[in-house]
C-alpha cells in the first residue's frame, strides 16, 4: 500500500461501543492521537438498548442511546476522532499495526485496541434468514413499533430476552415466550423473572422450542415443538423476536490474535492479546460478565496499557535502537542485590567511554515485555546494541574486567 495514503495515529480503536469509546476517552485524554473506527453509529449494542437500569450514576435508569452519545461526546472532547467505516482486515505482523477498512481507508498505529463487540446470535431456523426484517427481529427498539396491537413470539429466556420482551409489551397485544425449561424456570434473574410473571401481556409456552418460522413475504406463524411430548403445533404470530445470546464480531481478524474456539479474543488482566501492542476490550473478550460497565472498565485498562506500551517502545527505540553508535543496556531489578551492587561498575565503564558508548538501564520487572523479547530472565544481564542489533551479550556472573573488554571490542567494531 502506498505510504502517502496511510494515516498514522498513536492508537487505533476498532469498534465504538462502550469499550471502544471508554478506551478513546482515556487514550485521547493522555494526549495520544486516537482514532475510533465504527461501522455504524457509536454506541454498539448499548446504543440500541432502550433502557439501562444498572449503569451506576443514573438512579431511575438511563436510555442506552443517550448514554452512548455522552460516551462519544466525552471522547471527542479530548480529541479522539471517530470515523464511520467497517474494518475489513488487519496486519499486526510489523512494528506498526495496519488496519484497512471496507471504505478503502488505510491506517497505521503503534497500538491497536480491539473492541468489535458481539452481535445477536441467530438460530438458523428454517425461515429465519428469509423473514429477517419481515417479522423476524433481533432488535426490540428498532422494530417494536411495527407490532403495535399485534401478537409476537419471543425466543429465549435470559435477562436480555425477558427484558426485551417486557419492552415489547408496550406495543404488542401479546408477547408469547417460548421457553425450553420446565414451567416457572427461567435463566433470567429473579427480580426480572418476577416482574415478567406479573405482566398480563406476557404469555408462556414451557418445555418448548421453535422449529420453523413460516410466512409468505412476512411472518405468519411459528412451529413449536414440545420437548416432552415431541408434539408440533402451529402458532399464528405477526413477529418473532430472537434473543438467544451473542456471537463475537471477530471474523475480520482471521486469527491475527489468539481466540477461543467460539471466536472470543483471549486477553490478560492488562487486556493484552497474544500480539504485542494489540489489546482487546469489551464483549468480544473472553470474560465473566458482559455489561456496559465491564466494557467501559476494559476500555480504560486497555488504553492505559497501550499508552504505557507506546511510551516504553518509543523510549527503547530512541535510546537503544536508533543511535548510530553502540549502546550498552544493563537489565537490572530492584529485587536483585547483585544487579544493584554491579551497577556502579557498569556506570564507570560507560562514563570512561562517554561519547562512544551510551548506557541505558532497564528495570526488567517494569519492562517485562522488552526483557522477554531479548530473552532476559535474570538480572543483571548486559546487552550491547549497535545500529539496532544486539552485537554482544554478557551473562551474570561477570566482572568489571570482562565487561570492559567486551565494551572496547564493541566500540572498536571488531
Amino acid at each position, binding site marked *: 500500500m502506498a505510504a502517502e495514503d496511510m494515516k498514522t495515529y498513536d492508537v487505533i480503536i476498532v469498534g465504538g461501543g462502550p469499550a471502544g469509546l471508554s478506551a478513546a476517552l482515556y487514550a485521547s485524554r493522555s494526549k495520544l492521537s486516537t482514532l475510533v473506527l465504527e461501522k455504524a453509529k457509536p454506541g454498539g449494542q448499548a446504543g440500541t438498548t432502550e433502557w439501562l437500569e444498572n449503569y451506576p450514576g443514573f438512579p431511575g435508569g438511563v436510555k442506552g442511546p443517550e448514554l452512548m452519545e455522552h460516551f462519544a461526546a466525552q471522547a471527542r472532547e479530548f480529541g479522539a476522532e471517530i470515523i464511520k467505516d467497517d474494518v475489513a482486515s488487519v496486519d499486526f505482523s510489523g512494528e506498526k499495526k495496519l488496519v484497512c477498512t471496507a471504505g478503502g481507508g488505510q491506517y497505521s498505529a503503534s497500538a491497536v485496541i480491539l473492541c468489535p463487540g458481539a452481535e445477536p446470535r441467530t438460530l438458523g431456523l428454517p425461515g429465519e434468514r428469509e423473514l*429477517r426484517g*419481515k417479522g423476524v427481529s433481533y432488535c426490540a427498539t*428498532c*422494530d417494536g413499533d411495527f407490532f403495535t396491537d399485534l401478537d409476537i413470539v419471543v425466543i429465549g429466556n435470559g435477562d436480555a430476552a425477558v427484558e426485551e420482551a417486557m419492552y415489547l409489551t408496550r406495543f404488542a397485544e401479546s408477547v408469547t415466550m417460548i421457553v425450553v425449561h420446565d414451567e416457572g424456570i427461567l435463566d433470567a434473574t429473579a427480580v426480572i423473572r418476577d416482574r415478567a410473571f406479573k405482566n398480563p401481556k406476557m404469555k408462556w409456552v414451557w418445555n418448548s422450542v421453535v422449529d420453523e418460522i413460516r410466512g409468505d413475504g412476512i411472518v405468519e406463524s411459528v412451529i413449536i415443538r414440545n420437548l416432552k411430548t415431541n408434539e408440533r403445533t402451529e402458532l399464528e404470530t405477526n413477529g418473532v423476536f430472537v434473543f438467544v445470546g451473542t456471537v463475537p464480531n471477530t471474523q475480520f481478524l482471521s486469527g491475527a490474535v489468539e481466540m477461543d474456539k467460539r471466536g472470543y479474543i483471549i486477553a490478560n488482566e492488562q487486556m493484552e492479546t497474544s500480539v504485542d501492542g494489540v489489546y482487546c476490550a469489551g464483549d468480544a473478550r473472553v470474560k465473566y460478565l458482559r455489561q456496559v460497565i465491564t466494557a467501559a472498565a476494559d476500555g480504560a485498562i486497555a488504553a492505559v496499557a497501550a499508552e504505557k506500551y507506546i511510551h516504553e517502545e518509543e523510549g527503547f527505540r530512541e535510546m537503544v535502537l536508533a543511535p548510530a553508535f553502540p549502546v550498552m543496556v544493563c537489565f537490572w531489578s530492584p529485587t536483585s542485590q547483585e544487579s544493584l551492587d554491579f551497577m556502579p561498575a557498569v556506570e564507570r565503564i560507560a562514563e570512561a567511554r562517554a561519547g562512544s558508548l551510551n548506557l541505558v538501564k532497564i528495570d526488567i520487572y517494569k519492562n517485562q515485555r522488552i526483557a522477554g523479547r531479548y530473552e532476559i530472565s535474570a538480572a543483571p544481564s548486559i546487552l550491547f546494541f549497535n545500529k539496532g542489533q544486539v552485537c554482544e551479550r554478557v551473562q551474570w556472573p561477570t566482572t568489571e574486567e570482562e565487561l570492559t573488554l567486551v565494551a572496547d571490542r564493541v566500540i572498536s567494531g571488531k
Partner: protein
Amino acid sequence: MVQVDKVNFEEEVLQAKGPVLVDFWSTKCEPCMALLPDVEALEAKYGDQIKFCKLNVLENRRLAISQKVLGLPTICIYKDGEKVAELTKDDATAANIEAMIKEQIQ
C-alpha cells in the same frame, strides 16, 4: 429526500415515472439514524437518475406492513409501482445500497 406517507405514497412512489428509492426509517431506530447521512450522500450522487424518498414508519405502520416491511432499516427500490429490489437490516449498508442503485438505473 421527499417525505412520503400514507397520503402521498401512491402518487410519489407507485405512480412515479422512473425508479424510486424508499428509505423506511423511524426516529427510534438507531441504525436507521446512522444510515441516513449515507443515503443522503447517495442522493447527492444519484439523485438525478433515481428519486429518493423516506418514510417514517411510526406514523405509517400499516403502509409499511402493506409493503411487507416489518423491520428497520429497510431500503426498497420501486419501478412502475412494483418493488424491484430491497435491502434490510445488516444488508442495508452504504456500499450495498449503492450497488443496488447502480443495478436499477442501468
